[in-house]
């Protein structure tokens, strides 16, 4: 089935609905929904000013509010666009991000002065 046909059906149904058979991972959704542009590929910081969202410091309920009604330059993700299931996957992905080994232990970062900067 062509993409154009899928698009037409979705619009006719009036839902613009998110595919119920969602198989994309939270990481893929993070990329597909364009989150990486502002928040960076690992959620820490992006190139154009998004706030750090990893490691996750919010509850799922707070995260839902931040995504559905951000109140800043971020576009609001309504349930019609980002389903509750997808929202949970995103939350799980962002919660899973952990810092990699300590800065000072990584030689390439050390050469950028990481060791010297640590207090």
């Amino acid at each position, binding site marked *: 089935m062509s993409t154009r046909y899928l698009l037409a059906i979705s619009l006719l149904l009036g839902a613009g609905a998110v595919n119920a058979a969602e198989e994309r991972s939270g990481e893929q959704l993070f990329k597909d929904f364009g989150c990486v542009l502002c928040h960076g590929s690992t959620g820490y910081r992006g190139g154009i000013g998004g706030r750090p969202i990893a490691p996750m410091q919010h509850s799922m309920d707070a995260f839902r509010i931040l995504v559905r009604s951000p109140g800043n330059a971020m576009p609001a993700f309504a349930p019609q666009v980002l389903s509750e299931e997808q929202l949970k996957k995103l939350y799980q992905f962002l919660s899973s991000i952990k810092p990699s080994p300590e800065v000072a232990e990584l030689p390439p970062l050390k050469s*950028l002065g990481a060791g010297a900067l640590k207090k």
Partner: protein
Amino acid sequence: MTDKDHDTEHGRLGRRSFLKAVGGAAAGLGAVGAAQAAGAAETAPPASPAPPAPSALPPSAEQESREYSGVFSYTPEQEKRYFQEHPGSDFMVDVIKAVGIDYIAVNPGTSFRGLQESLVNYGGNRKPELITVNHEGIGATIAHGYFKAAGKPMAVLVHGAVGTQHLPMAVYSAWCDRVPMIVLIGNHNEPSERGGPTDWYHSAQDVPSILRDFTKWDDTVYSLQQFSESMARAYKIAMTPPMGPVVLAIDTHMQEESITGRPPRLPVLSPTIPPQADVNALRQIAEWLVAAKNPVIVAGRVAHNQAGIDLLVQLAELLQAGVVDQRNRVNFPTSNPLSAGSVGQADVILGLELTGAVPGAGQQGKRTVTIGTGDLLISRNVQDFQRYAPVDLSVAGDAQASLPFLIEAVKQRLTRSSRNVIAQRGKAWHERWRQQREADLNAMRYGWNNSPVSTGRLYAELWDQIRERDWSLVSADIFQSSWANKLWPIDRYYQHNGSSGSAGIGYGAPAALGSALVHKQNGVLAVNVQKDGDLMFYPGTLWTAAHHRVPMLTIMHNNRAYHAETMVMQEMCNRRRRGVEGAARIATTMDDPPIDFSSVAKGFGMWSSTLITDPAQLAPAIREALAVVDSGRPALLDVHCSGR
């Protein structure tokens, strides 16, 4: 039928036919003749009586030359008809050499065949050397990047209306980025000299008009003397701030005609001294800067060279003023703590060579002043001038040229008490800079072991292997979270190219190559972190790099999408609360099929790795690629990367 054939047909041997016949006969005797010669040399008696001498021996080279001269010399009429002495385009090469053009990017075309031949045979294809490109846009963008490293323009030679129509986006970027280049357009200006339908298709009545909205000056040239003067004028105009591209349409007929009569004169190039801002205005600015509690400098395209950076450092350190470098050029060293500038708490903002709005301008409690040449070069059509900037004082003048006077004016106004305040200010910027670096280093380690490879790791691994060398990042890093500008010590003018100026796509690879051409001469390692979508505009750039043996390390930031557009498409979906699955990825991604850049590079004759997906493979692959670059060839590493 030729005269020679005609003679043979009628039973009369032409001279060449006769000699051929004799030669054939002589060949049968050749062995004998050779033996005779050998025997004579050894003075041995002949084994048998010598045969009679041949009636006709093959002619010696001297004889042949003497005998042929009658056949292959031309009558004066033939000489005049077939051949040319003193072609006009030879003089054009002298002019191009006289103004100091070292390279000309070219995709061949008949409208400049005269000049092309002269550049190669008369000029020796050296200073200027022709750089072969597969698209005129590549050529102009190479010129863009070349200027950023060389500090002087190169030329682009294009073919009439058709070649010129491939140029606009590349020339527009140069215009927006205040980059000079000289565009030479071969054109059959004179209709009566056009050979046939193709010449008409490829000609235009006013061919520079295709580029006129975003070039500083153009001229249509019909005579060699005009070319001489217009070339010098073009160079001066292009290089006088605000710098920009210029165009000369050079008549095809003029190139191909011989010089007769009084010879044209070579130009004397006298560079124009950039304009300094009004001294009274500079004194007023110095007054405000010294009296300010927290002055901040915002730098656009300030530095023309290392001296510009040094001057800005001098001013900033005198005032301990934070500097916001917009990184269109290297204006200020990233390793200087004052580079952590921000206009947030500023009470006086000095904008230098900014385009459009000044950050913080118009806010309560902030006095804003600008020095720049922007108002001296305004387009009537394209809107690169940006939003009108309301400022307290706007001074026309080249910022770099104005800095020495401003620095002296500031020095004269500093007192002992003001120096104490200033010193405290400096400590605050230093602490801010330290904190920023620490935060950025922490950010870099997130996703360190991820696949696709994180851009943070890519820049860290790359730095680890080039830091002991003399290097230049010949690409912009804004789409890779600006890692280099955040963490690498970019302190020298040539160490970073900056962006296209127009925020357009297609600039990356050719601009990197243009800079690498310069760095090749200076032994500087050129490193290009190349966006995948950007390369797809001008992939032929890789062939030019391979063809001209330009040593450059290209690392693909292969994220398989135009990610910025994914985001804005998603924004639309959100606003309208609808979206089929992956709506934002339709027409914004390049992952089906994924592009095999390694094969693309190899196909163009460039060394390349296999696709790198495991971050642990990155360091050894960079090492291997650098060895190729050290051997004088370009190399490409295809790295499957995270989005940013």
